[in-house]
């Protein structure tokens, strides 16, 4: 392992001149270890003296074998994993360890007597506070992930018997809390709109936390980070053991990618686009779990219960009815959710989770713009790591358990900007090298990201330039796509793009499954922004939940009176149009007007004229004669554009399923000053 370490040292020759000062001390410890296990060479022995080149492979093999044992369970189940391997390495070596500790204490290490699990190396246990904090951190991760998941599942309206009929329909929980507390979202929308939208001030809390403790958000709170932590631990990869895991957990140059991306997104925000939400971890988590994982689970749930229900066993049917009711009230909703083009969102999630097999927490280290943002902020943090390089035996246990790939090992400077503050390294360290404390000695720490100034400027500028480049191809005023029907209360398109972070909260909460992530309907820039697809679900007339959960104000928090237009102009998302060639009463002399029945306004925006139309009989009545002509009464529907709110209920219920005879486009949407149909709605003196 000494050899494996060599290149990391090389960059710091000046600060840690060779011969490395702690080698002699280590020799003492190793001799004791060797005495304890006379049959096998002590794992650290080859490092006692500088090994000849020929021996290096052997030492590497021995080391990686040991690491493999130690790293089983790579969460940082550090103390446990390390403890068991330690016990295996030194059976019954308690007196020897005591002796070793005595020698350690001679070299100023605090003597610790603990009857806990045995540890490798000098076996100095981590401070009790650290061992406690590691468990507190795990509890916090479970808690915050649970909270996130609970909020996500609660991002759906479920009625209650206790509510009065006139009580406005709102969600009881602040389900968008994680997004409100997201400083990257706050910074992006601040740059794009020059204001902070309502609850986004909560992100100051996370910012303050980072200023004090560094990136604790990443290691302790972030639900997406926890997901990666979990998968990095649970994925049994034969590849990612021992030396390979240690190598993977060392700081790599490509970890700077997230900083460049973050600056690129902030550049785009300055240019007027909150497109960075595409990669914000909370947005990704809400989007991928809410629109992909939960509906997929629901699919299997419904499939299973349906199969059970068709067995014709009464008791089983009752049980599945109960199970389905419970699930639809907790995890999902009564009907199977469907989201347009979610396969790509889900595929991205699976791919990024799979990366944990090759590089643990690849997302957090290489891609996460929020992590990068907090990494930049963490340079001012008061809490940090102090290393006593002299005591490091290069056992690499810290690296085995490291989450942020922030160089916790001795001999190199600690990267505070990469550290998730998971404290695994200190808990794993058997040599008393690593110490987390307030106002640490910064001699062995790097606080700022290792970035190329030119690349940084270039990426920031690229982000800023990308926005006009994308918009020239898809200018909101010039190239209207009729499919971009924005949710009710959405602000004008340019401001909408300044605000929408594609978090999918609105899509998740929509009770009719009407809002969907756009694929390329709204241009490349509009990827995963919400659009209404009435064919799949219509906008419930009196529902304003999408505005309630929107964390950035892309959809305003309108109330029912504003939306339905009680004493004012209602919010219109578009206008319904008839395709007379497909409409039953218009083209096929068949009564229908379900569209009129479902039209929610009063007076209805769809009205029907009763006409008598000829219809050829569908069968011969007289032998040898033509089929008779009948006259039948039908009601032909018409739209009154000044009343239509574009909710799409007509389109949803049109019996022509594939390509409805009535369809909504965004023409006449109230949010736009240019996409106007009627003269009376034109606002003069405005562009």
């Amino acid at each position, binding site marked *: 392992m000494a050899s494996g370490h060599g290149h990391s040292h090389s960059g710091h020759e000046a600060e840690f001149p060779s011969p490395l000062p702690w080698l002699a001390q280590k020799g003492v410890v190793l001799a004791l270890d060797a005495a304890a296990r006379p049959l096998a060479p002590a794992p650290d022995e080859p490092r006692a003296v500088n090994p000849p080149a020929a021996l290096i492979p052997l030492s590497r093999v021995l080391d990686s074998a040991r690491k493999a044992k130690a790293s089983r369970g790579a969460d940082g189940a550090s103390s446990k994993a390390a403890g068991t391997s330690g016990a295996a390495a030194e059976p019954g070596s308690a007196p020897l360890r005591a002796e070793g500790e005595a020698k350690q204490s001679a070299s100023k290490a605090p003597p610790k007597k603990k009857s806990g699990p045995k540890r490798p190396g000098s076996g100095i246990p981590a401070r009790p506070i650290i061992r406690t904090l590691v468990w507190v951190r795990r509890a916090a991760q479970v808690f915050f992930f649970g909270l996130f998941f609970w909020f996500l599942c609660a991002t759906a309206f479920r009625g209650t*018997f206790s509510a009065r009929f006139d009580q406005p329909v709102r969600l009881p929980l602040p389900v968008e809390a994680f997004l409100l507390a997201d400083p990257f979202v706050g910074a992006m929308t601040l740059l794009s709109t020059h204001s902070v939208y309502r609850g986004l001030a909560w992100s100051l809390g996370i910012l303050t936390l980072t200023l004090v403790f560094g990136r604790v958000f990443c290691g302790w709170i972030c639900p997406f980070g926890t997901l990666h932590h979990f998968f990095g631990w649970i994925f049994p990869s034969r590849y990612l053991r021992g030396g390979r895991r240690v190598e993977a957990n060392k700081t790599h140059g490509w970890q700077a990618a997230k900083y460049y991306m973050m600056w690129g997104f902030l550049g785009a925000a300055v240019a007027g686009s909150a497109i960075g939400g595409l990669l914000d971890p909370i947005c990704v988590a809400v989007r991928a779990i809410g629109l992909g994982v939960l509906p997929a689970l629901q699919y299997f749930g419904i499939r299973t219960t349906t199969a059970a*229900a068709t067995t014709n066993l009464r008791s089983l049917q009752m049980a599945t009815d109960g199970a389905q009711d419970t699930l*639809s009230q907790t995890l999902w909703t009564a009907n199977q959710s469907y989201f347009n083009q979610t396969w790509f969102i889900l595929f991205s999630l699976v791919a990024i989770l799979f990366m944990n097999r090759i590089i643990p927490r690849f997302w957090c280290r290489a891609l996460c713009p929020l992590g990068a943002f907090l990494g930049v902020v963490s340079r001012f943090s008061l809490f940090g790591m102090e290393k006593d390089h002299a005591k490091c035996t290069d056992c690499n246990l810290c690296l085995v358990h490291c989450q942020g790939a922030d160089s916790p090992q001795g001999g190199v400077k600690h990267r505070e900007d990469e550290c998730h503050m998971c404290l695994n390294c200190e808990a794993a360290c058997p040599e008393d090298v690593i110490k987390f404390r307030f106002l640490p000695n910064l001699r062995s720490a790097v606080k700022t990201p290792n970035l190329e100034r030119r690349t940084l400027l270039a990426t920031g500028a690229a982000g800023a330039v990308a926005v006009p480049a994308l918009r020239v191809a898809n200018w909101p005023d010039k190239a209207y796509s009729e499919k971009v029907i924005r949710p009710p209360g959405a602000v004008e398109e340019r401001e909408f793009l300044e605000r929408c972070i594609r978090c999918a909260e609105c899509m998740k909460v929509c009770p009719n499954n009407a809002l969907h992530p756009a694929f390329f309907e709204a241009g490349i820039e509009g990827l995963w922004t919400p659009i209404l697809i009435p064919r799949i679900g219509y906008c419930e007339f009196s529902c304003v939940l999408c505005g309630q959960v929107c964390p950035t104000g892309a959809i305003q928090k309108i109330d029912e009176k504003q939306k339905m237009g009680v004493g004012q102009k209602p919010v219109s998302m578009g206008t319904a149009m008839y395709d007379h060639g497909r409409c039953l009463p218009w083209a096929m002399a068949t009564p229908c007007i379900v569209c009129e029945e479902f039209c929610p306004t009063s*007076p209805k925006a769809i009205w029907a004229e009763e006409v008598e139309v000829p219809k050829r009989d569908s069968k011969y009545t007289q032998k040898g004669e033509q089929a008779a002509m009948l006259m039948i009464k039908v009601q032909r529907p018409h739209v009154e554009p000044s009343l239509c709110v574009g909710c799409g209920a007509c389109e949803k219920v049109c019996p022509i399923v594939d390509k409805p005879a009535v369809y909504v486009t965004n023409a006449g949407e109230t949010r736009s000053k240019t996409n106007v149909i009627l003269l009376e709605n034109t606002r003069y003196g405005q562009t």
Partner: protein
Amino acid sequence: MLGGSTIATALLYERGGLELTRPTGERQVRDFNSHTPGPAPVYAIAKSSTDPAVLVQRAVDALGGMKRFVSRGDIVAIKPNIGWDRMPVHAANTNPRVVAEVVRLAFEAGAKQVVVTDASCNEPNRCFQRSGIWRAVYGLGATVILPSAHRFREMRMRGDVLDQWPVYTPLVNADKVINVPVAKHHNLSKYTAAMKNWYGILGGRRNRLHQNIDVSIADLATFMRPTLTIVDATRVLLRNGPQGGNIDDARDMNQVIASLDQVAVDAYGATLIGEKPERVRYLKLGHERGIGNMDFMNVAHVEV
């Protein structure tokens, strides 16, 4: 093993799996009409109060009281109109106080369980909550079931236009079924109350039914023969039906009509919104099929 697989194949092959659905030929009927015969009137119009609960009591009492219809230990399904995301003042759904009183009377008559449900048109959670019915009946101990996909099972009705269709099981798996519709205007069928209310037992794409709305209503009324029909006309939607949406669309009429005859009560109700029963085609169809008598003036009735 060969024998086993042969038997399994024989069981599963060509018969719709384990679900043996075969046409039986005749129009299917779900008849819950098991009241004891008596000299009481066929329908009773209560209009002597402004309290919906009192109106329900008087109308049901005039037909011989709830005990005539509900026996001790019955599971009673109550089918109000909870179709729309509207508040009681809009009169698009059944008045919650009418529904609550029916629930109370059913429990008083000894019902073991009272189920209140409907397959809504708008989003069910909103409909159930904002109609006020959920809150009104929950406190009385009724079981409120929100419609969801798994509660629909394909059934054969053998009607003229409705053959096989997903049916909402809580409304047919009961000992007694009480239909509690609201009387209101409907642009296509002219008037909607008792017979049209059975649209709410169907799942699937109901929008196809409108192409032959009158025959499909008659088919449904043929299939469902309720124990009792209690029409809420306390506040009646006169225009922009069936949803309304404007307070001015509805008018207080303070009537509740209890009936054993779905057709007669609808014929009477049609007059409330100023519609002639002869112009409502499904009434004529129901009359011809013998479901009831649309000549409501000549059917035994009382006003209380």
